[in-house]
């Protein structure tokens, strides 16, 4: 089986696990969307319970297998149910409003952090024992600091004391989201601090991994041979050492995407950023079960698709995966 086909099978299996877990969690756990709605609107008559059960599709009619297939059919139609928090909006509508925020901010921050971290890792390894290499313990510390703690300190310093950045939110409130200059300006301004904290904390990991692999690669005979035949340092670094050392980092990029989304969850909570993570947090605290599950599925699928893309990049970057079944 080729590399991509094998990976595809893995992702389909993972997607099935996510979908199935998502199906069983509400059926195994205490807590029920209808009781939540009844609690939210105390004026509802007890008779409304049946209507609500029908509307939210709970009450679990039919056998478990029957329910499972009905759930799958709904899923394929993009029907994730109704949100209790934003009732009567559907979960899909709420998600469509929040996705762009997370995608743009976290996506940009991740790419910058990966590129910058990898670059610094290459430099630290090449100038072994140099200034950058000496600073490694500081980067280790950044990697171990809980993200939200650093973010809180950053808000305290940059927003509350020096008033350089807003202390949270996605844009200035009276503005209406849309593609006009004032809104974009405000959104970018609000995203600088969250993006910076994300980059600073996640960069260290890329840097350390790149450095360590690069050091091992530099020790290879072909790098020594390249140096010995008098190639320019730049050429040896980039086309001989870094070109080969970057492969584990690319593989790590794929796997870490899941953690990126996770980090974004805490980031969005700390900065009250109107993205998927903050919406998930709000859904959890207000017992909005349908929204919670919809967001989990969305995150899971996004991570799977991102992984598939990263695998495709890996196949391009590493010719060996094309000839034999490296796994």
């Amino acid at each position, binding site marked *: 089986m080729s590399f991509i086909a094998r990976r595809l*099978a*893995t*992702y389909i*299996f*993972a997607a099935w*696990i*996510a979908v199935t*877990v998502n199906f069983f*969690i*509400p059926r195994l*756990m*205490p*807590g029920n969307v209808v009781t939540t709605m009844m609690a939210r609107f105390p004026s509802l008559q007890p008779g409304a319970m049946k209507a609500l059960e029908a509307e939210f599709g709970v009450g679990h009619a039919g056998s478990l297998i029957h329910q499972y297939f009905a759930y799958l059919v709904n899923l394929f139609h993009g029907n994730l149910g109704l949100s209790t928090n934003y009732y009567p909006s559907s979960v899909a509508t709420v998600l469509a409003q929040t996705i762009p925020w997370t995608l743009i901010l976290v996506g940009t921050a991740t790419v910058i952090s990966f590129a910058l971290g990898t670059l610094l890792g290459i430099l630290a390894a*090449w*100038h*072994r*024992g140099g200034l950058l*290499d000496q600073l490694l313990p500081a980067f*280790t*510390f950044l*990697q*171990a*600091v*809980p*993200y*939200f*703690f650093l973010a*809180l300190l950053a*808000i*305290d310093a940059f927003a*509350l004391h020096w008033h350089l950045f807003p202390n949270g939110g996605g844009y200035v409130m009276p503005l209406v989201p849309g593609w006009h200059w004032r809104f974009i300006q405000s959104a970018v301004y609000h995203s600088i601090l969250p993006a910076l904290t994300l980059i600073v904390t996640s960069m260290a990991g890329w840097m*350390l991994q790149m450095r*360590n692999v690069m*050091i*091992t690669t*530099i*020790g290879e005979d072909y790098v*020594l041979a390249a*140096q010995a035949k008098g190639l320019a340092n730049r050429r040896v670094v980039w086309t001989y050492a870094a070109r080969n050392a970057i492969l584990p980092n690319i593989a790590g990029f794929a*796997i870490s995407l*899941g*953690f990126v*989304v*996770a980090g974004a*969850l*805490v980031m969005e*909570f700390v900065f009250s950023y109107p993205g998927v993570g903050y919406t*998930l947090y709000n859904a*959890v*605290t207000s*017992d909005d*079960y349908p929204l*919670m*599950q919809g*967001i*989990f599925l969305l*995150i*899971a699928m996004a*991570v*799977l698709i991102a992984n598939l893309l990263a695998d495709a990049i890996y196949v391009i970057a590493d010719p060996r995966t094309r000839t034999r079944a490296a796994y």
Partner: protein
Amino acid sequence: MAVAVISTVPAATRRKRSLRSVPLKAKLGALIIGAFVLVAIIGPYIAPFDPSAINSGQSLPLGPNGVHLLGTTSFGGDVLSQLLVGVRSTVVLGLVTGVVATFLSVVIGVSAGFLGGFADEGLSLLSNAFLVLPALPLLVVILGYLPNAGNIVTAFVLSILGWPWGARVIRAQTMSLRSRDFVAASRETGERTWRIIFFEILPNEVSLIAASFVGTVLYAVLTSVALTFLGLGDLSSWSLGSMLYWVQNQNALVLGAWWWFAPPGLCVAFLGMGLVLLNFGLDELGNPRLRDAAGQRKIGGHAWRPADPTPVLRELQLSQRQLAGALAAEGSGLGGDTSSTARRFVGGHRRAGRGRGDVQ
């Protein structure tokens, strides 16, 4: 002669040297973690106050003073006592998750790597699928359904989601070990499978398993602290996460109460750093090339490295002067001596000296 120089090193020095060869990072990491484990054991007994005690007359946090060494919270809770009590549950949660998840990854990784075939395909598929499932959102959803989840539930879910990375690494190592000669030999002599696994394969994976354990503990500590900070973990007991939850909830940062918000945050950071350092140390133990840059020198703008910076080479550099003296006394020192140790050392000496001797 050279061999004599080496063998006259007293046993005590050699022992000291072997302790010194443990990377500094690993020692530092072990020291930090040891301190935290100690606090986890004795912390609740030496806490000067009841961490949950409140002073009804107080509404502002009090700075550090003679009675409250790390100050108080807004309602008069003693920060030092909260810290001493709270470290225990965070450390215990991390260790329990580490043990359970590492156990799972060893069982699954070794079975997949050793059995091969369909079992391997199935188990690899399972671990790769779990690897790409986003852990934190899943935890948030599960804990959202279980509002009063205690530490046991959190540890359980963290373990279920924390094993795949270790399993993947251990599987790869098992596959490589399985095809080595010593395993084939023990199979030929009729050893049972369980004996091959426990006495031939596992002892060769100890460093890998240790690294995977340390990594899992780090993941468990950081994730559980983040979850509790979000208000989804166990808020009824004191932990570093619940301290940070109250810090955020009662605006310690806005109040400028650094003695309140800094200690728990720094504790998590130091615990995490200890684990990261320990893992780096284990990495260096397994990969000598990552060790310090002592063997590198710069000539004419090019950074030259010894091609094979193994520990042998490094030890040699320490005794290079001695060795040079011994060689000088021996005359050429190369002709008559054919002992393999001497040859290795002289070869290593030449290699280490390349550049320095040739170019200058």
